[in-house]
């Protein structure tokens, strides 16, 4: 397995008027080419911060992030990043948002719209091609963002809590779509979530983080066979075991949090 993204001895501090916050520290983590890695941890433990560093939008306070062995020093155009916050362009229609990366590359309008429509169809937004983001619900906008990230087929995809705003059923449908696509493309995925079930359903490996300052508490390999049936895998006994073990690490956090707080 080739290491694709390497976090080495990472710490990141933020200094604000109210003092210095250490978002995460002592993070050593390797993402291998073609794998699906999930990062799970409580809110505020630096998950988004870690993705920002891999994308080259943020520099670590200590340590370094490497992409294919090279230090990430500027925006990393090898990765597609679906950020936690909505970053659709409000003045562009849904289809033009999805097609934007293809437009930047100079693909013809017909070609990029064909791809955009195909992706919108896959994320269940057929019929909304010419709507504007402001006319859609939060969950629909998330799916547009996802289509936009997937449509240009970046080598690596970073996803920050992409399905948080979706209802349970739709979430499963999206899991199914995501796994199919990932199996077809072998894109490397780094997927941040605070939902353990989601992490175990999707990932090859799950990294569990402690509360802030975020440190890696455990990394577990999810040895469930693929292709996975996202609708039924929850009932697999092996799924239950893994989930319970990972929950153990998170629970320690929760209990510690209660004790300290």
């Amino acid at each position, binding site marked *: 397995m080739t290491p694709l993204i390497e976090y080495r001895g990472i710490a990141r501090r933020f200094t604000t008027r109210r003092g210095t916050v250490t978002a995460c520290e002592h993070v050593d983590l390797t993402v291998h080419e073609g794998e699906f890695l999930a990062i799970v941890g409580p809110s505020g433990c630096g998950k988004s911060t870690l993705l920002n560093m891999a*994308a080259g*939008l943020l520099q670590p306070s200590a340590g370094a992030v490497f992409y294919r062995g090279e230090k990430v020093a500027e*925006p*990393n*155009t090898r*990765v*597609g*990043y679906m*950020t936690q*916050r909505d*970053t659709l*362009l*409000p*003045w562009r229609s849904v289809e033009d948002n999805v097609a*934007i*990366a293809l*437009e*930047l*590359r100079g693909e013809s309008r017909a070609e990029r719209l064909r791809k955009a429509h195909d992706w919108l169809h896959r994320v269940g937004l057929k*019929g*909304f091609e*010419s*709507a*504007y*983001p*402001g*006319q859609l619900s939060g969950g629909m906008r998330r799916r547009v963002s996802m289509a936009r990230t997937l449509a*240009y087929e970046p080598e690596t995809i970073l996803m920050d809590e992409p399905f948080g705003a979706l209802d349970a059923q739709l979430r499963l449908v999206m899991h199914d779509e995501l796994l199919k696509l990932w199996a077809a493309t072998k894109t490397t995925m780094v997927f941040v979530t605070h939902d353990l079930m989601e992490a175990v359903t999707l990932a090859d490996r799950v990294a569990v983080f402690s509360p802030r300052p975020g440190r890696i508490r455990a990394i577990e390999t999810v040895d469930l066979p693929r292709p996975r049936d996202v609708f039924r895998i929850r009932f697999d006994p092996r799924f239950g075991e893994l989930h319970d073990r990972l929950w153990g690490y998170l629970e320690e956090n929760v209990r510690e949090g209660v004790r300290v707080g």
Partner: protein
Amino acid sequence: MDTLTAEMDQPRVGHDAIASARDEWLKVMAWRIGITVVGLGVWEGISGRWVKPFWISSPSAIWAQLFGWYESGDLWMHIEITMTETVLGFVFGAVSGVAFGLALGLNKRLAAVLDPFVIAFYSLPKIALAPLFILWFGVGLLSKVVMATFVVFFLVFYNTYAGTLAVEQELVDVLRLMGATRWQIVRKVILPSVLLWIFTGMKISVPYALIGAVVGEMMASNKGLGYLIQASAGQYDTAGVFAALFVLMIIATGLHELLKQSEKLMLRWKEEST
């Protein structure tokens, strides 16, 4: 979006509601006309009886003055001059304001260097420059156009510049990761974000363009509505002052209406997109 609008509940407006809304409108209009008629009547009545026409003139005298200017062709000539100055000043000011605002917004070093100069000029009451412009550009059209341009320039420049600072960094970052060139980011993120700010700057600067032109005319000129006011006052011709003010009021109201309509168009665009 058909599917979406179909889902939205349209409030059902019955005939009664429409009829009562029309009644309300008629009442409002009746009151407005009433106030105008009574106001003009009282003015006409007290003028020459209780107050000397020298102070307040009278509606009939003002009307006669307006008609006189109309017949001689002076009215259109003066209106045309003032409007030309206003429009030219607005166009030059807006174009240069947008260009300069973008240049500074996209070039942090330039912005940092020029910051104190910009603040200094921005804080200066622009009207105080009128005598200088007249000195430089003469008593004709040019000095007023420069005056209006200068006033508009700063308002539009400032709004454009503020707009570039308000562009969401996250939108820029997402495009950078997609491999966008700097120019692509400018075209596809920065310009569309700043557009709304530019429109706002233009909107607030329209009345100022008129002010700039009229003030310039009042200081030194032989044409335009500002000149009419100044010249009439100089001859103690109160009716002339009022008549020119009246025309100015009509023009300003017209511009205001024009802005209101263009703003409605803008809002429609904004509603669709935010």
